[in-house]
């Protein structure tokens, strides 16, 4: 909680300038944004996620995400001692929250635990999706965000196959690949992402690894963090605190 407040204080100045920019109708990369001064990441505290679906809805509204596809989504996990066999569901990406499980469908027995895991593009430093793009329509920006150039994408779908996390989809009308942009149109103006803005518990925190004052450094020092599927060695930059081993 405390962390998110301090975080916002550091951003307020820049955000104020940016908003004037937006109002003035010149919403490009704001003049005080230096692309090489940032290296964006995200921190997710699994223990703070309440599965409300705010992030999914906010993302869909902010980014015009087509129905049935997701740039961020929430999974509900249930597992016991057999962590290889978790029970997972994500009805409509968790957009409308989660109903209690139907009677008799959950795990019983000792050691059963349940939790929510928000997912999004990991903005990998060594991203397999940009590696396979045949034409350079998807790429990692100098500030560490993996983006897609919709005017250049062929729609060959190779990147969708190469993402180990299922973060990409093909837009049903535009026929190009899409995924989380880490709200590049917001973070370059000093705003946080839509999902972080809408998260009521501070489970999600946008982080700038190049900013020495970013609270993420303090957090990483004191907590164990993990990335999804570390065996894939993709240099994932969405860090999870309190992540259970059953999550994949």
């Amino acid at each position, binding site marked *: 909680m405390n962390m998110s407040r301090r975080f916002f204080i550091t951003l307020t100045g820049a955000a104020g300038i940016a908003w004037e920019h937006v109002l003035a109708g010149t919403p490009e990369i704001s003049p005080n944004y230096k692309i090489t001064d940032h290296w964006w990441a995200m921190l997710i505290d699994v223990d703070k996620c309440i599965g409300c679906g705010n992030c999914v809805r906010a993302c869909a509204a902010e980014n015009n995400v087509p129905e049935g596809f997701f740039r961020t*989504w929430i999974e509900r996990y249930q597992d016991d001692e057999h962590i290889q066999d978790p029970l997972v*569901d994500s009805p*409509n990406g968790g957009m409308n929250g989660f109903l209690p499980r139907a009677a008799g469908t959950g795990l019983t027995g000792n050691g059963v635990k349940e939790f929510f895991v928000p997912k999004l593009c990991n903005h990998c430093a060594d991203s397999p999706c940009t590696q396979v793009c045949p034409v350079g329509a998807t790429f990692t920006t100098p500030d560490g965000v993996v983006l897609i150039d919709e005017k250049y994408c062929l729609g*060959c*779908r190779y990147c*969708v*196959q190469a993402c180990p996390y*299922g973060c990409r989809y093909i837009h049903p009308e535009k026929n*190009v690949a899409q995924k989380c942009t880490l709200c590049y149109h917001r973070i370059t103006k000093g705003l946080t992402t839509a999902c972080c803005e809408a998260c009521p518990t501070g489970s999600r925190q946008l982080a700038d690894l190049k900013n020495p004052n970013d609270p993420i450094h303090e957090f990483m020092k004191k907590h164990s963090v993990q990335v999804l599927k570390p065996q894939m060695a993709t240099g994932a930059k969405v860090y999870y605190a309190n992540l259970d081993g059953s999550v994949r």
Partner: protein
Amino acid sequence: MHLNFIYPNESELQWSILIVLYPFLTGLVAGAFILASLERVFQVAAVKPTYRLALLTALAFLLVAPLPLQLHLGHPERSLEMYLTPHRSSAMAMFGFVYLWYLMVVLLLEIWLDYRRDIVLLSRSSTGFLRVIYKIMTLGSDNISERSLHLDERVGWIITVIGIPSAFLLHGYVGFIFGSIKANPWWNSPLMPVVFIFSAMVSGIAAVMLLYMLLTKLRGFKIDIACVDTIAKYLFYIFIIDFSLEMLDLIHRIYEADESFRSLDFMVHTSLWIPHVIIQILLGTLVPIGILGATQVLPLAEHMRKKLYVIAGSLTMIGIFAMRWNVVIGGQLFSKSLLGYTTYTLHLGSREGLGTAIFLTILPLGILYVLVKLLPPWQHESLSLN
């Protein structure tokens, strides 16, 4: 596995039957070319009657090979970007160049050099529109002196020698497109390119063998049994290598049983049981290997052998197609969460449906028909018969 869970974006399958067709067609190209080079480089005289047919078959299939890719793109009009700004780290980006190299430098040139004498003669004897076509094909030079033909022979030989590794490259790289995807455990294997090359040789050799027998029959000529026997013998040997490699891959997966094993094993025993175990391994591999093996050891009559070759060749084609299907479609039937499965629905009339796939399979045969009419591969044979 208590609950079927797939990542929300996985509800849509990405690569359809057209992408199954693509490695199948390029495989036929590579295989047919390697059969042709048997005669040219490795001096296997018995297969000479199929030399030109194999080259034309390779060309016909190669011309169609990029079409399924093109048709499945979300933005086909942007496909030129593959040539203009190829991404060097992408296996797929190299396709354009490998393809062009193979089409222009290897196949077209080799065919042209081999047919040049015929083209010049045809441009003299034919009339009307055909004459114009042949004239263009001569590139304006009608020199068929002894020395120039000898030169063609020499250059052609060099191109065939370059062509063999090129054919391996063409298809090995198709395997690499799949084998290098670490996100997908069903594809991710360094054996993938090698398996693709050998299965390509199997399918290409079987296809040329069938086409040769069919076309010779249709033309009312006698099938050269020594030639077909030799082809069948090579098919048998290469098939055994191919099968061993595929089994090595399978056994390795079963023995290693990594994190993906339970998920994939379940898939092979359910949705892939018929296409993979029954059609690919049993019907499409073991049975033809058995038949071809029998023709090698048993003293069978000529007409019996021919029949068996047709059966074995046809089963081989079905088996290799099933192999492509199981790689491409099978690799998308399970979730990357390894917790669930999806299904593939094959539509009939859509852009990426069965209708398009059938059309694209028949199209090379149509092109081959035109090529055979334009550049008769039986020139020497008919001349000697006259």
